[in-house]
């Protein structure tokens, strides 16, 4: 388990992490989402011991991670812009990772390279961006570390490879309880792979929940009320996170269980209503809007 306790990190005037406390359980895919500059990359770099937190502590299976090879050996980190040795081939990086990660599975690496049709003797500099991402993932998977931290790793992958990587993750999780931590802006991609999501906002963690429970705790309701007073009654009963009206059709984002919401709305006998599940992206937008991040008014 990764335990993050009141971690703060500041870069000059910028408070990148403002007292984050959360836990990442083993054997699940943890999605880290957040706005630009929310602190996702900083958090990941802190998790793998690159950054030393100004305050708080990060424990990997109970051990502090910074300057602790024992804890760091359980973590593999892929940055959003992975470094490869200049003029080097995948073999050069392979030797590097083999030196540093004694459990590195060379055979697995080559079999995956073969499966993804990557040439181990070709210079990495001639690889496309997506191929480099694939290569990074293969190193991470082959290093056989318990925790695999990926920063924007799925960006740049084509849909076929993305699905392949997802399957690969699932297989690794089944076989050896690998715990991927994936930071991404691509919420749709996270949605079908992550089991738990942490939402970062302005250096703080907004929430950290199971995706299912999160999806079951907030819904979008499209409704046409008979009287305006009906909407007020609903608003008194539930937390309305977002409201949008087009003509008589009202779209409300409401926090609550589906059954409770349906029961309450039925009682108002509206002209029409429909309760819809929210996508992760909609949940993300709604939650951040609650905190004042006004997406609708960013431009104009």
């Amino acid at each position, binding site marked *: 388990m990764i335990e993050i306790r009141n971690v703060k990190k500041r870069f000059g005037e910028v408070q990148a992490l403002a007292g984050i406390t959360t836990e990442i359980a083993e054997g699940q895919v943890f999605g880290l989402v957040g706005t630009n500059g929310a602190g996702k990359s900083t958090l990941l770099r802190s998790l793998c011991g690159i950054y030393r937190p100004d305050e708080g502590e990060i424990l990997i299976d109970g051990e502090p991670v910074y300057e602790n090879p024992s804890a760091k050996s359980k973590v593999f980190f892929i*940055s959003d812009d*992975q*470094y490869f040795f200049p003029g080097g081939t995948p073999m050069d990086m392979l030797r590097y990772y083999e*030196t540093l990660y004694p459990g590195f599975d060379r055979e697995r690496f080559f079999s995956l390279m073969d499966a993804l049709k990557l040439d181990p003797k070709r210079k990495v500099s001639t690889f496309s961006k997506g191929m480099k991402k694939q290569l990074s993932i293969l190193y991470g998977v082959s290093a056989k570390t318990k925790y695999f931290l990926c920063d924007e790793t799925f960006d740049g992958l084509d849909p076929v490879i993305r699905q392949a990587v997802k399957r690969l993750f699932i297989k690794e999780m089944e076989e050896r309880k690998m715990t991927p931590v994936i930071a991404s802006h691509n919420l749709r991609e996270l949605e079908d792979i992550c089991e738990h999501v942490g939402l970062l906002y302005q250096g703080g963690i907004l929430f950290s929940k199971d995706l299912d429970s999160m999806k079951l705790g907030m819904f979008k309701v499209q409704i046409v009320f008979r009287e305006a007073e009906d909407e007020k009654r609903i608003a008194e009963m539930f937390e309305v996170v977002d409201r949008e009206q087009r003509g008589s059709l009202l779209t409300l984002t409401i926090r609550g269980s589906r059954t409770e919401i349906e029961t309450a709305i039925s009682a108002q006998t509206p002209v029409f209503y429909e309760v819809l599940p929210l996508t992760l992206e909609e949940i993300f937008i709604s939650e951040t809007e609650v905190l004042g991040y006004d997406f609708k008014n960013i431009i104009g």
Partner: protein
Amino acid sequence: MTSKISLGKLIREDLRHRHWMMALSCLTQFFAGPVGVLLVTNGVRPYNPDMAGARERLANSIYQTLLEYFSAASPILGCLIAGVGALLVGIFGFRHLFSRRMADLYESAPITRKDRFLAGYLSGFFVWAVPAVISLLLTLILGQTRLLADVPIPGARAALCTATGKALLVSLFTFLTVYHLCILAASISGSVFNSLVNTALIGLDVIILKAMTASCGGVFFRTYIPDSESVVRASAFSPLASPVVMCYYLVRGANEEVPVPVWKEVPFFFFASIAVTVLLGAGAFFCYKKRASEEAEGGVANRAVQAVLRTLNAFLAGIFGGLLMNQVVVYHRTVWSVFGIVVGAVLAYAVMDIIHQRRFQAALSHKLPMAVTTLCAVVLFLAYSMDWFGYDAYLPSESNIASAQVYFAQYREPGRRLSFEDGRVEYTYGREEDQWVTMTDPAQIRSILASGTGYAVNARNGRGSENRLLTNVQVRVKRRFGFSYTRSYALNMDCIDAVRSVVETESYRTRNYPSCSGAYPTPDLLGVETTAGGMQEIRDAVWARELTQAYYQDFAEHYCVERLTSSVSVGRLKLEYLDQDPKQPESTIYRTVSLNIGYDYKRTLSLIREYWELLPIGIEDLMRSEPYLDLELSWNADGEYEMSKEMLYSYFGVPGAPALDTYKVSDQNPAYSVEIGLGSADPALLYPCLVIGDYNGYYGTFYDAYNCSGLRPVGTLETRNRYLQVFVKNGTVPKEFVDGLTLETIPYDHEVHYSDEGYGDSYGGVMGSF
């Protein structure tokens, strides 16, 4: 928290990414070592193989060539390669500190920073060391094979081995010092550029600081002596200097004509180098370990380091700006110096901020520290320039004086080296320890110090002294309480008795005028040349010996402080010796020593007259031998120049100038009115044939004007040195003026001084030489 990954594996992995460095290292060291030794010995061939002893000469020649290569070229090239190599492996071997992408890769790996540092450090070291050792061994083996086996030279092989060891040692120190310095700079920097800047700054700041201190002392203190020896020693404490000094001593030890026991200095430099290297290495490790990964691609990683570098360099730049202005301007020096300090310090501070923070807007981001630094530089500069701490005026109490050593630079024989048939070599250079006289009487010592201090204070205030006795008297004072110190003084006549009691002794005379005192048998005197009555050469060895003996007698007879003080002479006696060339024992070289002939050296003059019938030694000859009149006036830079000029005009009777007696000595007037003991000669007679310029002008801008007659326009006078020089056009001195001069009117009194170049008091007094 230890890493399970072996250091060996990490080093091997690191080396795999430094192939180009290794290749470069191998290539350069191969050319500098084995190829180099083959090249230098390639041209050594016997001149005539059939000649007797040709083989021996060839063997010796090869050995000398090899020894020179191993002792000089090898350490110099080794140092150069080691220095450049250390810079490359130091900066580029730790380049992961400058890239966030690399930092992500390296810092996320499961090893400690200590292991990462050691792996990077050792692999960088091996990149240089392995090729260096192999190259030197190969060079040594090749060198040994070049020695002629059938003509063994005793100790030759051992000498080459020793030289190789020394070269390796010096190269090692060079490499480690620069390497540690670079890693330290890299560890506190966020980019290659900043690393290089910091390498230079950290490495050179210590030297600059010392140089700046010495410069301020030299410029502003009248009694300051730059201790060159301590400067050299101190440079060993500078990160970049210690191996260079080691190398210098190695080369010097190999090539110095005079066998200086240089290796007695080596232990000091050895331990200093070790101390510097260890300190830098420890600093590099500490900074690396403490460095935050996020500093990659930034400016300077550590804020405290930023502040130190900014402050130190701005401070130094400020002092430099002040010194520059002080030397450039003529009037209002203090104001201009302060301006120079402010500009220098502010600019340096702003530039450092821009470099550290990598943005132009950062130029004024530390206004308050910038102002404080500038203010400190101004205060220090003013403390120097105005001598707030009373450096020049310091005079210890009599009870605090334990003893002193005094060196009268003017009272000694010109430097020379004498070789004798028995192999003995004698040196009479002025700074030899035996020319320092130990004094133990506190009252006597204080009398000299008081005179010197008084003169210095007057000189500082733009006042000379009409009672000057001596310049460049160096005194080492040992105090009962506090450190000993050494100063250089000019002395007034008020301490002539104290000087006399030291100088007019038999022991002083024999030590400081050994030739003139007959202390040495004259070795192989070849001839005598005299400027008396025109340049003449005497090749009659018997007569030459007789003349020199006569000179010695005259010298001893007239030996007194007054006589020694006066450099007025009829001419010079140049003795020529045949000497052995220390580098080539079979060759001889000529050495000469010049001695002044006093007008009252009757025996000497009589013999010269006897030899040259054409010699009526008269005043005309004096004027011919020293064909210029050299007068100096002193004044305060900012207020008295015009007055001095007018006084000079008055002195020479320039039409329209006020009468000379209107000038009175006061705070506003120049030091004193011109009185130079010209007897009945009227200086106004010189007016038509004068050229007035400043001292530098004689060699530069006024050189062409030398043949002009009349006074130069005022506007062209340069007053930088605060004194004027008056030249008399050669051969145009009016006869009436010359007739007015007599030998008796040019005594060795205090008002006519020989202008002793470099040591003269440029601030005070009226000086004239004939």
